[in-house]
C-alpha cells in the first residue's frame, strides 16, 4: 500500500500533467484559467505537510522509477510549489483571452516537469521531467508571439537543446559508470570514474544552461522580459533553480575534492554575479534588469556550489545554505517579477504602499535586515569564511560576496528606477493583485515559517540579526545606494548638459 | 566401272540440277529444273535399291510437287501488285 505521501507525490505530478487535457473542450477555458492556482496545491501540501523520507517506487517507469524526498528536495519542492501557486493566482488575473488555452497547456506541462523533477530520484524520470519542463517552457517564453518573443524563444530553445544533450551525455556516462539508474549512485561513481572530468563538465554545462551560468546565460535576459509576467516569475524563480538542483544531485559533492572545478565554478560565479550587474544596470526594461539580477544571484549561488565542490568536507553544510539561498531568492525574485505587471492605484498613500511592497522583496534580496535575504546572506557569509575552507581561491570569496551584495542592490534599484518609468496607473484585476500580494507575503513573511533548516548556522528563524552582523549587511548596501546616487546625479548632469 | 560412271554422272547431274534449280534466273525455269531434279532423284533411288522411294519420289517429288509449284509460279507471276518483279527470284 502506498503511503499517503507517495499518493500525494503522484498526484502532484499527475495533476498538472493531465490538466492540459481540459483544453480538449473549448467550453472549459474559463475553468482552466481558474484552475491554474490549484495545480501546485498537492505539491504544496506534500512539501509542507509530509515528512521527508517517503519513497515511491515505480518499477514500470522508464528504466525503473523511484520518487522520494529528502530535506534538500523538500526545500526545492516547496519553493517550486509556492512560487507556482502565487504565479498561478497572478496568472489567473493577468491572462488575456488570446491563446489562453495554449498558455494553460504549457503552464501545466512546465509545472508538471518542474515539480516532478524535484521528487524524481531515478535518472530516467528526473531527466524526463527536466526535459518536459525545458521544452514546455518554450511555450511560455514565446507565448506573446512577438518578434522578440520568437527570437528569445529560438535562443532559449537552441541553448536548451544543447543543454539537454550535454545533460543526456553526462547522465549516460555517469549511469554507465555507476551501473545504476539512480541519481543517488552517481556522485560516487563519477568521482571514481576515469571519465570524471568529462562527466562533470557535461553536467555543469548542461544544467548550467538552466541555471544561467555565465556564457550559458544568453537566453535569460532575452526570455524573461518577453514571457508573460507570471511565466517570467516561475522561469526565474523556480526553473532556474531546477538547474541548480541538477548540479546538487548529480555532481560528486562530498565524494572527492575537486579544487580545480571548484575554482572554475567560483570564477564563473564571480563573473556572473558582477558581470551580470554591470550589464544589468544598463538595461532599460525592468524585466531585463530582473533577469540580469537573476543571473547575478545565481552567480552567488554558483560561488557556493564551487566552494562545495572544492571542499568535500563542507559540502553538506553548504548544501543547506545553497538551498536556503535558493528558496529565498526564488521567492523574492518571483515577487519582483510579478510586481512588474501591476499598475499603480491612484491615491498617494496607496501608491506609496504599493511601491513599498514592490521594493521590499528587492531589498530583501540585497540583504535588508529582518528579511529572508538577511538570513540567507548571513548564512552564506558564515559558511564561506575563509578559515573554514581549504582551497586556493577561498580567500577571494568574502570580497566577492560583498561585491555581489552591492551588485544586487544596484540592480534592484535600477529595477525600481526603470519600473518607475514604465509603470502605469489603473486598476488591477483582483486575482492579479492577490497573486502579487501573496508572493510578497510568502517572500517576506511566510518564509520564516517554512521548514528550512541549516545546520550549525541558523538553527531556527532569527528575526533579528546579531549586532555585529548588521554592519556586515548594511555597508554593502550603503555602497550600493551611494553608487546609485552618484549614477543618478551623473545621469541628471548628462541630461541637463545635453539639453543645453 | 560403268556403274561407277553412271553413278558419278547421276550424282553430278543431281548436284547440277539442284544448283540450277536454285540459281536459274527465272522462277518458272527453276521449277522445271526442279522437276528434272526430282526425276533424277527417282533414278538415284532406284540405284540405291529403294524402289518404294523411287516410286514415291516420281509421283510426289517430281510430279505433284512440280505441279504445285508450277501452279504457284504461274499464279504469283500472273499478277503482282507491289514491288516485286515476277522473275525476281534472287536478291
Amino acid at each position, binding site marked *: 500500500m502506498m503511503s499517503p505521501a507517495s499518493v500525494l507525490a503522484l498526484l502532484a505530478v499527475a495533476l498538472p500533467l493531465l490538466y492540459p487535457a481540459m*483544453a*480538449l473542450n*473549448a467550453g472549459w477555458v474559463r475553468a482552466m484559467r481558474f484552475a491554474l492556482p490549484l495545480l501546485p496545491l498537492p505539491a504544496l501540501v506534500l512539501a509542507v505537510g509530509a515528512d521527508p523520507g517517503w519513497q515511491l517506487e515505480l*518499477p*514500470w*517507469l*522508464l*528504466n*525503473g*522509477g523511484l520518487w522520494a524526498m529528502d530535506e534538500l528536495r523538500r526545500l526545492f519542492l516547496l519553493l517550486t510549489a509556492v512560487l507556482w501557486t502565487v504565479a498561478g493566482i497572478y496568472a489567473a488575473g493577468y491572462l488575456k483571452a488570446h491563446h489562453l488555452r*495554449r498558455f494553460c497547456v504549457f503552464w501545466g506541462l512546465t509545472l508538471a516537469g518542474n515539480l516532478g523533477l524535484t521528487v524524481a530520484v531515478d535518472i*530516467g*524520470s528526473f*531527466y*524526463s521531467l527536466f*526535459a*518536459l519542463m525545458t*521544452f514546455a517552457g518554450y*511555450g511560455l517564453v*514565446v507565448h506573446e*508571439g512577438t518578434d522578440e518573443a*520568437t527570437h528569445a*524563444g529560438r535562443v532559449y*530553445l537552441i541553448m536548451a*537543446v*544543447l543543454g*539537454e*544533450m550535454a545533460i*543526456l*551525455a553526462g547522465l*549516460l*556516462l555517469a*549511469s*554507465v559508470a555507476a551501473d545504476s539508474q539512480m541519481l543517488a549512485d552517481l556522485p560516487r561513481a563519477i568521482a571514481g570514474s576515469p571519465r570524471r572530468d568529462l562527466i562533470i563538465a557535461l553536467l555543469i554545462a548542461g544544467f548550467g544552461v538552466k541555471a544561467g551560468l555565465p556564457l550559458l546565460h544568453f537566453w535569460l535576459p532575452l526570455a524573461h522580459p518577453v514571457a508573460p509576467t507570471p511565466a517570467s516569475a516561475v522561469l526565474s524563480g523556480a526553473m532556474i533553480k531546477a538547474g541548480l538542483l541538477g548540479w546538487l544531485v548529480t555532481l560528486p559533492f562530498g565524494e572527492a575534492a575537486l579544487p580545480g572545478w571548484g575554482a572554475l565554478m567560483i570564477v564563473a560565479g564571480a563573473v556572473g554575479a558582477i558581470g551580470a550587474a554591470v550589464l544589468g544596470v544598463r538595461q532599460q526594461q525592468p524585466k531585463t534588469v530582473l533577469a540580469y539580477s537573476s543571473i547575478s544571484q545565481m552567480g552567488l549561488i554558483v560561488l557556493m556550489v564551487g566552494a562545495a565542490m572544492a571542499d568535500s568536507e563542507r559540502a553538506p553544510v553548504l548544501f543547506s545554505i545553497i538551498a536556503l539561498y535558493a528558496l529565498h531568492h526564488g521567492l523574492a525574485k518571483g515577487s519582483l517579477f510579478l510586481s512588474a505587471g501591476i499598475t499603480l492605484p491612484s491615491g498617494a498613500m496607496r501608491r506609496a504602499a504599493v511601491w513599498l511592497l514592490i521594493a521590499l522583496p528587492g531589498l530583501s534580496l540585497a540583504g535588508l535586515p529582518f528579511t529572508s535575504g538577511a538570513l540567507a546572506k548571513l548564512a552564506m557569509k558564515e559558511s564561506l569564511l575563509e578559515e573554514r575552507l581549504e582551497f586556493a581561491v577561498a580567500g577571494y570569496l568574502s570580497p566577492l560576496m560583498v561585491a555581489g551584495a552591492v551588485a544586487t542592490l544596484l540592480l534592484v534599484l535600477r529595477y525600481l528606477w526603470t519600473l518607475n518609468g514604465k509603470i502605469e496607473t489603473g486598476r488591477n484585476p483582483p486575482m492579479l493583485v492577490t497573486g502579487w500580494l501573496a508572493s510578497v507575503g510568502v517572500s517576506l513573511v511566510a518564509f520564516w515559517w517554512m521548514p528550512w533548516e541549516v545546520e550549525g548556522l541558523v538553527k531556527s528563524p532569527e528575526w533579528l540579526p546579531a549586532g555585529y552582523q548588521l554592519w556586515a549587511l548594511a555597508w554593502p548596501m550603503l555602497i550600493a545606494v551611494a553608487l546609485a546616487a552618484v549614477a543618478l546625479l551623473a545621469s541628471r548632469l548628462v541630461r541637463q548638459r545635453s539639453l543645453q | 566401272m560403268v556403274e561407277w560412271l553412271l553413278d558419278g554422272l547421276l550424282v553430278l547431274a543431281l548436284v547440277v540440277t539442284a544448283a540450277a534449280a536454285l540459281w536459274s534466273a527465272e522462277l518458272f525455269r527453276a521449277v522445271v529444273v526442279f522437276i528434272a531434279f526430282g526425276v533424277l532423284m527417282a533414278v538415284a533411288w532406284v540405284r540405291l535399291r529403294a524402289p518404294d522411294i523411287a516410286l514415291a519420289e516420281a509421283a510426289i517429288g517430281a510430279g505433284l510437287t512440280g505441279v504445285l509449284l508450277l501452279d504457284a509460279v504461274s499464279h504469283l507471276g500472273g499478277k503482282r501488285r507491289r514491288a516485286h518483279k515476277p522473275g525476281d527470284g534472287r536478291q
Partner: protein
Amino acid sequence: MTLNAWIPVFALMTSLIASLVIFALPEKGYRLRTWVNLGAALVKLSLVVVMVWGVFQGVEYGLSFTMVPGVTFVLKADALSMMFAGLSAVLWLLTTIYAVGYLEDSPNRSRFFGFFSLCVASTMGIALAGNLFTFFLFYEMLTLSTYPLVVHRGTEKALRAGRTYVIYTLTGGAVLLLAIAWLHGVAGDLPFREGGHFMDADPDIHRSLILIFILLVAGLGVKAAIFPLHGWLPQAMVAPAPVSALLHAVAVVKAGAFGIVRVVYDIYGVEASSALGVLEPLAWLAAFTILYGSFRALSQTDLKRRLAFSTVSQVSYIILGISLFGPVAAAGGLVHLLHQGIMKITLFFCAGNYAETLGIHRIDEMDGAGRRMPGTSVAFTIGAFGMIGAPPLAGFITKWTMGSGALAANMDWVIVVLLSSSLLNAAYFLPVMHRLWFREPAGSWPEERHWGRLETSAWLFWPPLLTAVMTVMVGVLASLPFSPLSWAELIALREYSP
C-alpha cells in the same frame, strides 16, 4: 502436425486471404471491404498475441517443409520474430483504419487494399521466416506488393518513383539472392538460430564469409536505406500517406533492418561477426547514415521528404545498435525496430492528415495548423519529440539503452553520433513544432474547424493519436514485462548466451 505448427501459417494467411478476397470484391463494396480488412487485422493481431504469450512461455511454433531440393521453407516464431510480427500486426490494424479514411472516395481502392494486405502478409512472412531462404521469399514478395502502392496515384511522378523503387529493391534483391545462394553453397541450409552458426567456422571459408556478409548487407541495405543505397526512399514519398507510413514504419525499411539483424545474430552469430571484423565497419556505416540522413533532412522543405530522410537516419539506429558488440546496445537497436515504427508511423499519419484535411504538403504551409488540428498536431509533436529522443518517449529509451551499450562496449564515439543526431533531429523538427503551435496561420483553412466535431474524419483522427499514445507508453512503461524494451533485452540476452 499440431496446432502450434499452424498458427504461424494462420497468421500469415489472414492477410493473404484478406488480400485475395479484397481483390475479388467489386470496387463499390466499400463496407464489406472495410470489414474484411479490419476483421483480418484483428484476427491476425490476436494470433500474434497468442504467439507472443506462447513464445514467452517457451512454446515452439513453426513448421517446415522442403521446397526446393536442399532448401526448406521454414516458418518459426521466436522472440525476435514476434517483435516484428507484433509491430506489423498492431500497426497494420491502425494503418488499415487510417487508410480507409484516407482513401475515402478515391479510385482504385480495391486494388490498393488488396496489395496493402499482401504487403502486410509479406511483412508477416519476413517476421516468421525461419531461414534466409524463406526470408528472401517474403522479402521479394514485399517488393512486389509495395510497388502498386507506391505508384498508386498513377501520376508520372509516382511512376517515376515507383521505377526508382523497383530498380533499387530488385537489384538489392538480386544481390541478396546471390549472397544467399553463395552462403547456401558454402554452408548449406542454415536455419535462424540464436547465436548463429559460424562461432567456430573453418578459417578457410572466412574470406568467403566476409564477402557474403558484405553482399548480404548490401542486398538488405537497399531496403534498410543505408547510405548510399537510400535513394529510393525520399522519392517514394509520392505514395499516399498510409503507404508511406507503412513503407517507413513497418514494412520495407524494417524488413531490411530486420534482415540485417537476422544475418548478424542468427546466421553469423554476433561473436563470429565480431571475430570476422565485419561489425565495426557496419557500425561506422550506420553511424554515417544516421548523420547523413539527418543532414539531408535539414534542407528539405517538403514535409514528407523531411520525414523520409529522417527515416534514413533513424533506421540506421537499429543497425548501429546491433553492430555494437554487447547485449545492451543490441537491445537498444532491437527496441528501436519497434520504437521507430511507432514514432514514424505517427508522423506520417499526421503528415497525411495535414495533406488530406488542409492540403498542407510543405513545411512553410504549416503555420498555425496546431490550432486547426490540435489532436493531429499533438500526435505529431509527440512523434517528433520521440524522434529527437526527448524523454520519456520511445526514442529516448532507444538512445539511452544504445548509448549505455556503446559505452559498455567502449565505443564512445557512438555517443557523439547519438547526440549529434539528436541535435540535428531537433534542428529539423523543432522549427516545425514552432510553426505548428506558435505561428498565426497565413490564411484561412480550406475547411474551418467546427466545435463539437473532430478536426478531421474519425478514421484519420484516431490512429495517429493512438500511436502517439503508444509512443509515450512504450517509453514511460519501458520496464514492464512485455514492453518492447524488456522484449528486446530478452532477445539480446538469448542472442548473447544462446
